[in-house]
């Protein structure tokens, strides 16, 4: 089995109020088959054995779907691999002797809790503000009573693949959450079931996004490049359009 020897430059921060710093650490004999997080596991075992405090990072499913893992690797959220979450980055993509910078997903709306762990609950509050279809359990009609053209369903699906990781925010120089919000809104707004609440949904979600301290979108689409699920920035255009329409309707008291 081939192995790698690496130099890690890792963000360490004891707590939310503490000052953070980059710590340099060797990672030795890392198997190339290991995932990036397994590399950190190995380093952490060594830290524990030598009496140190292990590097804290968020992770759970380790199969690219829960959205919990959130490392900025060499300056790019989830690394430079296209369409990949941190947990699906494998060490075979690195070379022996590499220096790797590992930082949290940085944004004012994602405060660091410890080391590489951030608080991304702002996303939950955006969903709570209107990112749903209000359907009481038990009141649904037969699932096939409303046919949805396949193209439309596929478009909704492409937006629905968002895993809520926040890479879009971390990649944006303004820390804008527009890709996240637009994807969540596009999923629901493009389905017939989502029409009754569409205007209200768009207004509430955008306002909550602003209240959480996310920045504005200046259409540079770093978010699209960083998204592990390759969600299209076309959703942003759609959200802007839907927001404009909803705002006009609101102004004339139709919402």
């Amino acid at each position, binding site marked *: 089995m081939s192995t790698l020897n690496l130099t890690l430059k890792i963000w360490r921060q004891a707590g939310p109020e503490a000052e953070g710093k980059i710590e340099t650490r060797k990672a030795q004999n890392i198997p190339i088959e290991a995932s990036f997080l397994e590399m950190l596991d190995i380093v952490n075992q060594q830290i524990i054995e030598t009496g140190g405090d292990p590097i804290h990072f968020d992770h759970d*499913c380790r199969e690219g779907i829960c959205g919990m893992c959130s490392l900025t690797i060499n300056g790019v959220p989830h690394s430079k691999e296209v369409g990949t979450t941190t947990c699906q980055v494998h060490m075979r993509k690195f070379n022996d002797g590499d220096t790797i910078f590992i930082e949290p997903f940085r944004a004012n709306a994602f405060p660091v809790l410890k080391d590489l762990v951030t608080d991304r609950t702002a996303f939950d509050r955006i969903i709570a503000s209107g990112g749903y279809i209000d359907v009481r359990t038990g009141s649904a*009609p037969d699932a096939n009573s409303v046919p949805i053209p396949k193209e439309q369903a596929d478009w909704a699906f492409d937006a629905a693949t968002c895993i809520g990781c926040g890479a879009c925010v971390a990649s944006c120089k303004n820390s804008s959450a527009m890709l996240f919000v637009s994807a969540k809104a596009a999923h629901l707004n493009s389905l017939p079931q989502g029409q009754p609440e569409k205007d209200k949904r768009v207004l509430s979600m955008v306002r909550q996004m602003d209240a959480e301290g996310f920045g504005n979108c200046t259409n540079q689409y770093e978010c699209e490049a960083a998204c592990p699920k390759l969600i299209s920035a076309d959703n942003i255009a759609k959200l802007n359009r839907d927001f404009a329409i909803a705002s006009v309707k609101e102004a004339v008291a139709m919402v």
Partner: protein
Amino acid sequence: MSINANIPEGPMADKWTNHKMNSKLINPANKRKFNIIVVGSGLAGASAAATLSELGYKVKCFCYQDSPRRAHSIAAQGGINAAKNYQNDGDSVQRLFYDTVKGGDFRSREANVRRLAEVSVNIIDQATAQGVPFAREYGGLLANRSFGGAQVSRTFYARGQTGQQLLIGAYQALEKEIQKGGVEMYTRTEMLDLVVVDGHAKGIVVRDMRTGKVSSYAADTVLLATGGYGNVFYLSTNAMGCNASAAVKAWKRGAYFANPCYTQIHPTCIPVSGEYQSKLTLMSESLRNDGRIWAPKSPDDAAAIRAGKKQASDIPEEDRDYYLERKYPAFGNLAPRDISSRAAKEACDEGRGVAKTGLGVYLDFRDAIDRLGEDAIRARYGNLFQMYEKIAGENPYKQPMMIYPAVHYTMGGLWVDYNLMSNLPGLHVLGEANFSDHGANRLGASALMQGLADGYFVIPTTVANYLATQKPGSVTTDHPEFAKVEKEVTDTIDKLMNVRGTRSVDYFHREMGLLTWDVCGMDRRKEGLEEGIAKIKELRAAFWDDVRIPGAANGINMELEKAMRVADFLEFAELLYIDALNREESCGGHFRGEYQFTSESPEVIAGKTQAGEALRDDENFCYVAAWEFTGVGEEPTLHKEELEYEDIKLAIRSYA
């Protein structure tokens, strides 16, 4: 304590209808007075919390993740079963019921399964109305595919991420109720113990994982929707954080734990590659709609592949053994999971494994690609193929996938009655955390169905049967029992922090996993299990003697979190082995090497089954084993719930 399943009277098909009619009701004004705690925010927890809040109850929901949307239901790939019969291929509620009972090797409770099959159709309606983007045909109607153990196409799916889409539906419903004020959500908050007051579950003690603060919450009833215990094997397809602590704590407080030996080994996972490995990744069962499973006929070919001298494509058609198609022609590659897993193990035991470790067989799409084209396969399974390529570093469009069985799901769980209530009054258990619906083996695409059935449709009705007997708000955290349990929790934390040993939590977790896989994996035997029971006691003692947890208990400390979970697993593992030792038969995921059909068995000679298949003992073991805790390291007390089959005839489970 009594063990009464409270199965409603009447014919099987009418039981749920009758039960709903006979269940107690609580009027809307009174519902507001009742507090309900829901632990877990996966499909079962999120759907229950949202629905109970819609009904007017005051709900508190807890999860250890940073957001309820990350619960491990999210990782389910393949689909969700429902008896819609949209395909006009002969499906019905009765057929789904039958397939599930048979799939569970006749070890599930018939009435619960019948109810599950009935409400399955409502789940699809509910999810679709929420905007869950199930796959559709060009005509705009919903599409289906097939899953193991069924000869009809009843599985609804959302590409390879059905779990994520269904969970987002439930999560959005939950967030809606949070916004409306009906649910208070506690994220990064882990339940560490159950509080029992006068014999009733009335609250929980939790730890805020950000600050380390330990505190209590009281309620009129507690719902556990905390998932399964697959991580007792260390390597599994579960998320890293999945744990059995809530269930183990409830067990230690008096709730019976049922059938822990029913563990599901999923046949198609990416094989283990090294010691550093932290988890295993599933390749969806849906792949078996188009993929064909095989191993070389000759051990020599397999050895050449392992040595890198040959590739799969070098093995000519006549030298390949499509063993599932050969052994189970009626179901072929869609044979159920337990059976497919054992067949893979058998091929590898014969020296025909193809992975470097010898533990791997092929899942081959060559024929499907020839028949349908690469694009069609990409459209169906693109994200799974991509995930495989990232992990295994090989292109599955060119070379077959290499797969091997891995721990995936646990059918056992806390014992519940028909109302989903434990023998411990006030404690309800939902989803994978309970035991009732899947018997000894779960069929593919039935976990999502069960989680959502319990949360959306069963508990909202049945919880009232308990609550109506209670005075709302009668117990608060002022009750001395809360302070007592809180103290026990903080004492345990202090004890762990003060071991100051030399070995990491992961070391103990890995050792426990290896032992569990060894003695209680795909082939269990008496001697191994007895040895396991002795060894796990030693490992548990070593853990408390030598574990090292760095840092402090106040603030985020992921080693401490892991240590508490592993400490509970170390107690649970012993129960798992004891149950496996007690059940002297083979059924579903529980395969005891001593109990299998041989070429001399009359049933094999009569052509009803084959040598090597699981040999059930209906005369002596047609019961649910519900275990009562009697002390750490002490022999637990066995309570039996006899399984009576009214509607479905007990039979040899054949897929040939």
